[in-house]
């Protein structure tokens, strides 16, 4: 801030961050791509009203054409409609699993940083989770609980809940560590002491003073979390242990496509491209956000 800023009206911290974020070309491009993909996935099935499960055996294994922009599969189902439909599930899994992991990470991080008594046990728990072999464990949990949850909540909701839940509870550790570090530093600041001296309760202290100040690392973790959740879900579906074929996600579409690789190679291309573009754009957004939220880099 130079002297001239004394005369300009005060502007919020978030406006500053937005301006910094806008100057990061990759992040803006990533944002545009991500918004485009999200809009397509949400509005797509309304505009492109072909049913992804409609079988048209005469039009099987077709290449891209005007009627089927991404071709058709071995039963003549439209791949474009399937990719749009699958994207809904993939993105929803990504967002919900990210929210769950952020919630857990922030909760554990704040508790461990704020209450000295909880610090030791909670951090040992974090270390323990970090030492678990996650992918094998995810596979094992899905194998064992899939049928039970499907019976309890129905085929689609059951597997959705299971996957979101297990991705959420196995990806909160990094967020917790970062948040804890920030909370530990914040606790020593004067404004916390001031708030304490006017009799702020622990609950209000965390909600009003601590949480708003650890928002930036949480937001960066959010972008990483979405990317991680989408990749994990696709990997599980790719290994045949995620979503079933009749309720496909991008990962599952890719997996189903691999069997027809010699016949219709584009079938693996579209869902794979969708996953890669989404993750790439989210990672760029995260990159830009990290730069924008870092006060040392702000002009």
């Amino acid at each position, binding site marked *: 801030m130079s002297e001239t800023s004394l005369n300009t009206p005060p502007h919020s911290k978030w406006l500053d961050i937005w301006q910094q974020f806008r100057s990061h070309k990759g992040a803006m491009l990533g944002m545009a791509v991500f918004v485009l993909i999200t809009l397509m996935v949400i509005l797509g099935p309304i505009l492109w009203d072909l049913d992804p499960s409609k079988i048209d055996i005469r039009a099987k294994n077709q290449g891209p054409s005007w009627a089927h922009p991404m071709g058709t599969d071995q039963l003549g189902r439209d791949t474009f409609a399937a990719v749009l439909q699958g994207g809904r599930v993939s993105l929803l899994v990504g967002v919900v699993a990210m929210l769950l992991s952020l919630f857990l990470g922030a909760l554990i991080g704040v508790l461990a940083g704020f209450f000295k008594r909880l610090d030791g046990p909670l951090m040992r728990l974090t270390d*323990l989770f970090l030492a678990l072999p996650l*992918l*094998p464990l995810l596979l094992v949990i899905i194998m064992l609980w899939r049928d039970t949850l499907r019976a309890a909540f129905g085929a689609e909701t059951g597997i959705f809940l299971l996957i979101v839940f297990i991705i959420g509870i196995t990806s909160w550790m990094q967020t917790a560590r970062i948040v804890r570090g920030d909370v530990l530093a914040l606790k020593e600041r004067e404004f916390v002491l001031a708030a304490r001296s006017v009799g702020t309760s622990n609950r209000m202290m965390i909600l009003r003073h601590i949480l708003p100040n650890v928002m930036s690392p949480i937001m960066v973790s959010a972008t990483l979390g979405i*990317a991680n959740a989408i990749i994990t879900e696709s990997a599980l579906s790719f290994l045949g242990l995620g979503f079933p074929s009749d309720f496909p996600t991008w990962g599952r579409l890719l997996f189903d496509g*691999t069997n027809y690789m010699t016949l219709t190679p584009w079938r*693996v291309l579209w869902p*794979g491209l969708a*996953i890669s573009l989404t993750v790439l754009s989210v990672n760029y957004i995260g990159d830009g956000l990290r730069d924008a939220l870092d006060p040392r880099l702000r002009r």
Partner: protein
Amino acid sequence: MFNYTLRRLIFTVPVLLFISFIIFLLLDLAPNDPTGNLPMTIPPEVREKIRVSLGLGEPIHIRYLLWCKQFFINEPLNILEQVTGWTIGDGERLRVRSWSTRSPVVDLIVERLPQTLWVVGLSYVVGILIAVPIGVLSAYRQYSWFDQIGTFISMIGFSVPTFFTGVLMIVVFSVGLGWFPSIYDTTHEVTNWESFIYQLRQMAMPVFVLALYTAAQISRFMRASMLDNLNQDYVRTARAKGLTEKTVVLVHVLRNSLIPVVTVIALGVPQVFGGAIITEQVFKVNGLGQLLITGIQGADIPLVQTLTFIFAVLIVLFNLVADILYGLLDPRVRYE
């Protein structure tokens, strides 16, 4: 340093026991029945006998302790016997047996280990060898076109999942161009020059896919670490006393920058084994990852348990290695 290592080693014992207990519980409390896939015509009393023969008759804590005994005492003794040719005791020990093949799990793992080590290990080495020069160059010429392209490629490298790069490579190079075989043939033996070339060709794609993924991550660390060091005072001193630029960068800066990178490399080893599960599945390499997937699909609990636990051991072990390496390489880090 020695005391620190010893203390850490002792501390890993409860950690590993705890993890093994969690894995055991997770598999044991799950609502599934190992005899569920058997024909419905088997009468209940026979089914009960099958369950007992699978070792499911005892209460859970007894089974856990028995598994511990099998895994931590019996199997190491067996390995010792095989390596040295001694006979310890009567040689008749209860071993961890796979439910589907009825052979000891350790034998299955030993069978699969070479493929994983060759493909995964080689790709990790190749990845590191690519990543270090790229990281050094892009830090030395920060914001140059080389750096920009390197950043972009590494972003792609860790955004695009290995199962897509793998499948894409198969589509392009085996289906389209026919350069490489898409399936890894484990029975292939290297006897002469042609078979050696074939071995190289079948390893090329899985190694490349995993190496790209590794290189993407490590080159970022290498670049960041080089950037940290390039602005340090000792670099200015080295230049001021007239050392050539080559010596300054490749001897002084590189050596110091490698310290954090080496620990990252050590920490990444178990992750690569985990990530290899997917790559092995894509290229049909019948290594450890593929063994795990088969075990999971066949609900082969002892096999899955042992493999998952071995992955956990790798993680804990390499965490320890990373910490110790850090202490050995960086004289500023001193463990009491």
